[in-house]
């Protein structure tokens, strides 16, 4: 095949497909890159995304590189006028919030992206108090599983050891802010699925923290109930159900038996959280 013919082949864009790491993936209009990838069984690391909830784009673990996107650049585009040769179409985006557009050439599982994702994960670990051996969620924790996936061996940065409060006021639910990673899954689940608005994030930057919508600020005075999705959706050990600790022994938990990259695991994790005796 001549070089010219080869170029023609690679430039042919099949309608409604994106390309992730060389694999053509179909998508429906309105789907994000994450939606299309998950539907096709391609894992993009993520913590703040859960299918069915409004994408949030805050954890940045699903950062992917888009090589060329369908957009025209005119000669007056200032980005083309630099004296350096730069690929102006190359950009990093959150897969969970970026709509899939036909012809996108996406890099996902690359050493460079996984190294950046590992650094993000290390920062999440050292900013909170994530002491896995002392946490009931160990083995069922998505943060931990993503860290395993990325081969994280240490925290790299100096530990913050922040002092955060435990809210044990609720009869059946415990809130340990030591482990909160501010993914807002509970915030969105409470608002969008439970219709309650129990949680919110207050403060900015390093002062951002999870708050409870009740007159006292305590969980006991909120309308949170054990059956709420917000109680079961926490990817880490920040929201725990009381009196159900260590029912599954360490070594036989979800991520002791599965990799986080196995697609279709989300319903398994949620079901397990709701029916711990299964």
């Amino acid at each position, binding site marked *: 095949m001549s070089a010219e013919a080869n170029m023609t082949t690679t430039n042919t864009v099949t309608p409604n497909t994106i390309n992730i790491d060389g694999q053509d993936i179909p998508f429906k209009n309105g789907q994000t890159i994450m939606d299309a990838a998950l539907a096709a069984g391609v894992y993009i690391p993520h913590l703040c995304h859960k299918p069915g909830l409004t994408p949030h784009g805050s954890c940045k673990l699903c950062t992917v590189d888009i090589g060329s996107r369908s957009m025209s650049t005119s000669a007056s585009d200032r980005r083309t006028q630099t004296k350096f040769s730069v690929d102006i179409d190359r950009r990093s985006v959150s897969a969970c919030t970026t709509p899939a557009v036909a012809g996108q050439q996406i890099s996902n599982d690359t050493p460079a992206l996984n190294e950046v994702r590992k650094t993000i994960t290390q920062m999440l*670990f*050292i900013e909170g*108090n*994530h*002491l*896995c*051996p*002392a*946490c009931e969620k*160990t*083995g069922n924790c998505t943060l*931990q599983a993503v*860290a*395993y*996936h990325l*081969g994280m*061996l*240490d*925290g*790299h940065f*100096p*530990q913050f*050891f922040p*002092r955060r409060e435990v809210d044990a006021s609720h009869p059946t639910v415990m809130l340990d802010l030591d482990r909160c990673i501010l993914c807002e899954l509970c915030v969105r689940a409470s608002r969008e699925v439970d219709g309650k608005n129990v949680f919110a994030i207050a403060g900015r930057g390093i002062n951002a923290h999870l708050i409870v919508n009740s007159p006292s600020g305590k969980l006991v005075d909120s309308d949170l109930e054990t059956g709420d999705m917000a109680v079961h959706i926490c990817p880490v050990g920040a929201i725990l159900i009381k009196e159900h600790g260590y029912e599954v022994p*360490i070594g036989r938990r979800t991520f*002791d038996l599965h*990799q986080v990259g196995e697609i279709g695991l989300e319903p398994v994790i949620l079901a397990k959280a709701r029916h711990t005796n299964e």
Partner: protein
Amino acid sequence: MSKIRIATTSLAGCFGCHMSFLDMDERLVALLEHVELNRSPLTDIKHCDPCDIGLVEGGLCNADNVHVLREFRANCKILIAVGACAINGGVPAMRNHFNLRECLEEAFLNGVGVDNPQIPNDIELPLLLDKVHPLHEVVHIDYYLPGCPPSADEFLSVLGDLLEGREPALPKNLLHYD
């Protein structure tokens, strides 16, 4: 060929990592054909000679821990942080939520069942650090072996890699933090 010389120590840890090291069981016999133990609780040698590999369990909670860690760094070509406490402070670091005086008062004055309440202050006791720290905040660490404790297979994997002159690469199926 001379044997690879290894030193081990437990700082602010529980000796669980050392117990897990011994879980190699009969594989220790084969390992000891290539390895000799220098300073270690297993040999009771009190100070390091120049070593090839240092395995350090536990974080830093007192001045003696820092002193011992510096001796290991000065004498070991390759220093490995072993276990959760060495890597991020682990369970002992849970005292970092409180100030040191609160901890001492709770343990030695106000605790349940305390007889003759007094805070120990013998001159031979090493001074406690204000906070518990992981090893890499004080000296350079070459490799990390996570786990609480790391399994015998993890020890074998890393030591095997080093003995055969490879860069240690822990297989993902052995990686765990609990």
